[in-house]
């Protein structure tokens, strides 16, 4: 099963330990995570279900390209990292 890791930066706001997840796409994987942790959804996605502007998701080292539909495929052994962009002041 794929494994998803969340930036330590996020832990300050919401508990989100690494975990194994089910799903063949980024959207399915996130849906699986949100099923157990519904509050996490609004931290990662905007009201239209798009990946938030200042977040990135990497699947096996590659940044996902479909930030709106979250359709990038996720191999069964993938390591997924949800990271924050370095921005702000």
């Amino acid at each position, binding site marked *: 099963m794929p494994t998803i890791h969340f930036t330590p930066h996020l832990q300050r*706001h919401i508990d989100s330990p690494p975990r194994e997840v089910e799903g063949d796409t980024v959207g399915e994987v996130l849906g699986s995570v949100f099923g157990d942790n519904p*509050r996490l959804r*609004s*931290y990662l996605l*905007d*009201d*239209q279900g798009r990946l938030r502007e*200042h977040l990135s998701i990497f699947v096996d080292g590659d940044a996902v390209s479909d930030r709106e539909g979250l359709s990038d495929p996720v191999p069964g052994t993938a390591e997924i990292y949800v990271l924050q*962009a370095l*921005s702000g002041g």
Partner: protein
Amino acid sequence: MAPTPHLAPRLYIATRKGLLTAERKPGAGSAVTPWVLTGASFLGDEVSTILPDPRDGNLYAALRLGHYGVKLHRSTDRGTTWTECATPGYPPRPAAADTRRRRARQGDPDESPWTLLQIWSLEAGGPDEPGVLWAGDLPGGLHRSDDGGESWELCRGLWDRPERTEWFGGGYKHPGLHSICVDPRDARRLKVAVSCGGIWATDDGGESWRLSAHGMHAPYMPPRLRDEPNVQDPHRLVQCLSEPEVFWCQHHSGLYRSTDGAVTWQEIEDAPPSSFGFAMAVHPRDPDVAWRVPATSDACRLPVDGRVVVPRTRDGGASWTLLSEGLPRRHAYHLTLRHALEVDTTGESPTGDRLALASNIGGLWITEDGGECWHEISRDLPPINAVRFG
């Protein structure tokens, strides 16, 4: 109205780097400032606005997390502990085909992202509406909660007005709904102000709305559009509690007053030292008394001649006194944002003597005598978005 009259007055300070609290030191002599900074919450995170609910004492803080979006927290113990509650949100944006049809028919593309970008205003419903909250946001939506923030609903009566797609940003990319005035006589009657989308009124709790910015003028628009109510940029709208037919509005292009419930507006011309600014406050019991914090001009958003002043009128804007004792007198670069001038309306019979004034470079002052003398609390705070007594 106040549920906690036995508690010391507090000022909540929503800043770019957290929520700060100031309290009045009991028994302090007049020679020292009786207000001191006492606490901080959400350090490091931007607090866009704050609401101390006068009906039940609950405190709400709206956060704008740079990476993770907008969050709303509630405290039932005056800010000691916090619980995250629901955040206002948007339904799925209409399908592209529908949007294209509408564009073809009306020629007014809906450029809104249909996602919450910032809670810009947060107000309690009426005393007879326990749990009702109103939130105004960027990109211009108004949201209602009936359960103290456990759930929210977008006010479709306003959002679905065809004029809404003509709104545009003022200072931000998207329009923002920043002022919500709940009529003290009838909480179903609201006035809201949008930058840039004029002033809107409802008499039925948000079901139906009408434009309420007639008489305002927008020189920044092409000549044909300058008197259109829907393009006006009201920077701040406030309502007199004891005479709710009277509203004051600091507009992008001047100062306005209405004495007929915002049906018509009259410009107050030649207000010294400048009629440009963002913040506005009206006395809770005297509709002729108001304060503002001008900047030089649209193009120079700094105090006139480097000197912070608070012009106060006691005659409905016919004349102004420039109050400055205790405020920076030279080489001052403070700008007061639209929610950073606040008159204390807490308690059974507010006197209108206590106000707080804050700036976008971390200055904070309080007056206890209607602005005659200001006490500096700090000039070292983060940029201040909003201040509220509670």
